[in-house]
């Protein structure tokens, strides 16, 4: 299942800052993730989870070590090449939703398709379908301010999924939501992983959220502390 690996981190370190104030957030991470896996990353605050996610999401580069995505060495790519990787293969869901303000749900979801150069007709259809899949049919023309937190996160998920990415990266996607809404969001993410085979990398603090994943990686102090596969959960 995990062979050949879709994602492979080898001895990845990340140091923020320089000189005496430098801080090493990642101290040598080795991690291989196969196509179609659902991985939860857990660990105490400050252990480097978000730092690792940013590197995995090609938003940032390791200070040292290598990151292969589909066999491509991301750490050797230019800024624009990494942007194109994100555009074509990755979808992001953030804790803080990060939708464009005063922009309708439909336009938010269309955004990645515009950068992909899809024409208007295909774009509208795909965006509507994505919103339908996250249960927001009828909410297409509402702006974030007119939506609840759970609904905003659904829009964000629709935006991440509308391009059918290879990997969905979610950093604490339920961090701002109540238990019931969190569950609905997790059901959605799980279904994308199960039904469409999308690889999911998710950071969470909550064990019952991590329980949705097939594999749990624990970070402690910039290192991988444990890496467990668990049986089909939830």
């Amino acid at each position: 299942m995990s062979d050949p690996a879709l994602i492979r981190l080898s001895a990845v370190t990340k140091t923020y800052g320089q000189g005496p104030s430098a801080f090493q957030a990642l101290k040598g991470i080795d991690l291989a993730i196969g196509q179609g896996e659902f991985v939860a990353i857990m660990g105490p605050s400050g252990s480097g989870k978000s730092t690792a996610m940013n590197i995995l999401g090609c938003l940032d580069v390791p200070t040292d070590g290598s990151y292969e995505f589909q066999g491509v060495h991301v750490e050797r790519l230019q800024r624009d090449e990494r942007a194109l990787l994100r555009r074509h293969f990755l979808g992001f869901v953030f804790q803080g939703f990060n939708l464009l303000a005063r922009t309708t749900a439909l336009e938010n979801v269309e955004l990645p398709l515009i950068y992909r150069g899809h024409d208007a007709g295909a774009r509208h259809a795909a965006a509507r379908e994505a919103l339908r899949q996250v249960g927001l049919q009828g909410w297409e023309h509402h702006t974030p301010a007119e939506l609840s937190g759970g609904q905003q996160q659904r829009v964000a998920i629709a935006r991440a999924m509308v391009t059918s990415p290879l990997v969905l990266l979610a950093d604490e996607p339920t961090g701002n939501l109540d238990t019931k809404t969190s569950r609905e969001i997790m059901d959605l993410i799980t279904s994308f992983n199960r039904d469409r085979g999308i690889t999911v990398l998710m950071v969470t603090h909550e064990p019952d959220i991590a329980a949705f994943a097939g594999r749990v990686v624990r970070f402690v102090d910039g290192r991988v502390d444990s890496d467990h596969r668990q049986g089909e959960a939830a």
Partner: protein
Amino acid sequence: MLWNTLLLALRAIRRNLMRSFLTILGIVIGVAAVITMVTLGNGATKSVSDQIASMGSNLVMVVPGQRFGPGSGGAPNFKSADLEAVRNQISAAEWVAPVVSKSVTAVYQASNWATVVAGSNNDYFRAGNWELAHGRTFSETEERAGKAVCVIGATVREKLFGGQNPVGSEIRIKQFSCEVVGMLKPKGQSAMGSDQDDIVVMPLRTVQRRLSGSQDINRLSVSVRDGASIDAAKRQLTLLLRERRNIAENEEDDFRVMDTRQIAETLTGTTKILTMLLGAVAAVSLLVGGIGIMNIMLVSVTERTREIGIRLAIGALEREVLLQFLIEAVVLSSLGGLIGIALATGASMGLAGVMGVPYIFDPAINIASFLFSAAIGVIFGYFPARRAAGLNPIDALRHE
């Protein structure tokens, strides 16, 4: 890519209607103010120079004293011998008209009107480029005998006769009545702001005998022959009159010789300075508008930085984000510039009508203010975005 980026830019404009509106408004006000001021100033300059041209560009006026205007400051008036001397000795002079002017009240039936009587002869009309609207000029007999006849200007006609033809009617001036034999075509305001058509012309003799009571002449109006140098004519006139008025070598002239071009330069110079002043005041408003735009842009920089972070995270290239912001800035400021130009055109036309100056479209100032507004938009809209687009997407997303 361009098309999609244009779409993104237009969406961003629509999304931030208030910000877009304020940006446009800032530019509209600045551009409209500058163009309107300068256009009106140009119109005023043009109208002044037009009026001067209507006096005849080859007219030279000789007045006693050093000041131009009423009162000779003690310098003696001219005599008819001076007139003859100028006529005979200044070869460049085509027509030489003596003028004696007096302020009077003209009465016709129940109407009366305060005006100026100019005592002269038919050379007055020739030298000053006057044309007749009705009737005739003076006959030789009338001039020689000092008959009570007059040719009136359009303003006097209107005030005393309304729309009626005045020719053949009698008007009263002081204690005598005089027959209107002709009416002049209107010329409009003079360069000095006085109404040239507000005049009653009578034979010199008539005015000297009945109004001024002396043989003096207040002014000489000399028209210079076509092709002859006005400066040379002025020099000759000065020399001749200095000699006739016994002015010693080391003394200053006690008279003044002026040509219309000189008057024109003085007066249009004033309106030009005024135009520049108004333009400068208006440019300040353009600048204030620009500062307003800068404010709006800076206030929204946090939100926009996060927006840029989102776009970068979902796979936008830095140059795509920049192009979007550039288009946004250019669209907004050009729109503002165009509306400003339209508004200025309307306002200048309207105000030019009210002020009675011609409307002259000045392409240079229109283009300059348009470019300036575009530059403001680009500087304040684009450069903050440029910094944000260079950020790491993560840092842009975290921006507070």
